[in-house]
């Protein structure tokens, strides 16, 4: 019973920790992609209209 109890607690903490890490990684990746899209679009506009 104690082993099951400890396992459940470990599982719960692990799920939350994995969630924290994955949310952070996903947000960082999204931000990087957003900046890249902006820079690409900006370059296109500069080529089209100049400075």
């Amino acid at each position, binding site marked *: 019973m104690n082993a099951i109890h400890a396992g459940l*607690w470990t599982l*719960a*903490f692990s*799920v*939350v*920790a994995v*969630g*924290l890490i*994955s*949310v*952070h990684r*996903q*947000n960082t990746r*999204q*931000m990087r992609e*957003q900046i890249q*899209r*902006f820079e690409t*679009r*900006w370059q296109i*506009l*500069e080529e*089209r*209209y*100049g400075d």
Partner: protein
Amino acid sequence: MGPLVTITLATVMLVACAGAFRGALRSLCAADHWRREVRRAAEASKTRSSPILGWASSGCQMPRRVWRFEGKIAGGERGSLELWGAGLLLALTSLLLLQALIWRHRQAQIREHFHQSLCLKEVVGETRRLIADVGALNQAIMAGEVSTWALTFLGGIGLVVRPNWEQVKKGLQLAQEARWSAYGAQLVRLRSSRCRLPLPVWAGPYLRDWRMQRTPDGRAKNRASGSWMWQTPLTTYRVHFELAAPQARTARWVVL
């Protein structure tokens, strides 16, 4: 991890935390219950005889209820640990939610900033093109080729500029705020309407309608009106405009 997964994970964690809290509180309540039982038994033994005598007469052994009480005290200690664990889990879950919310808010802010920057840059470029086209139209009118060249150049404007309504609105605000007199033109009025015609995408932006305003005796008033229509995958936009040369011999145009 999408928002649905985040919300589902957080809900599961919150339910788990609530269950752990419930179990811990039940353990603590059970400990309180047995503490009250022992106190009641002690009070009852006082009324019968002295506790020392009662204890001695029971063979110097702890009453069974006291043992059970101590067992529940041990359960209460375990419940306290569960309470701490559940609190920590709840804090981590809250941190997860808070992190997701803060990042989402920050990303929305940055996306809006990027969008505004790109729109402004595009508006500046498109407005320069528009002014150049209007200048060319002005030259054509000055050369006395109003009717034919106006159609040609207005069609050119409609095909080349290809603005969307958000950019036009931002351009209008920009013109009103910055007063782009340096470009010799001023945006004063620009009407727009949305129509949800099932036009094919290949129809694209084109000059839908235009007419030269004429005086009662048939002379051109140096004004032209028309509309641009273009289509996005979601809706079709139409912008009505009027062009006028307020001073006939100046090279400046006012876009009404």
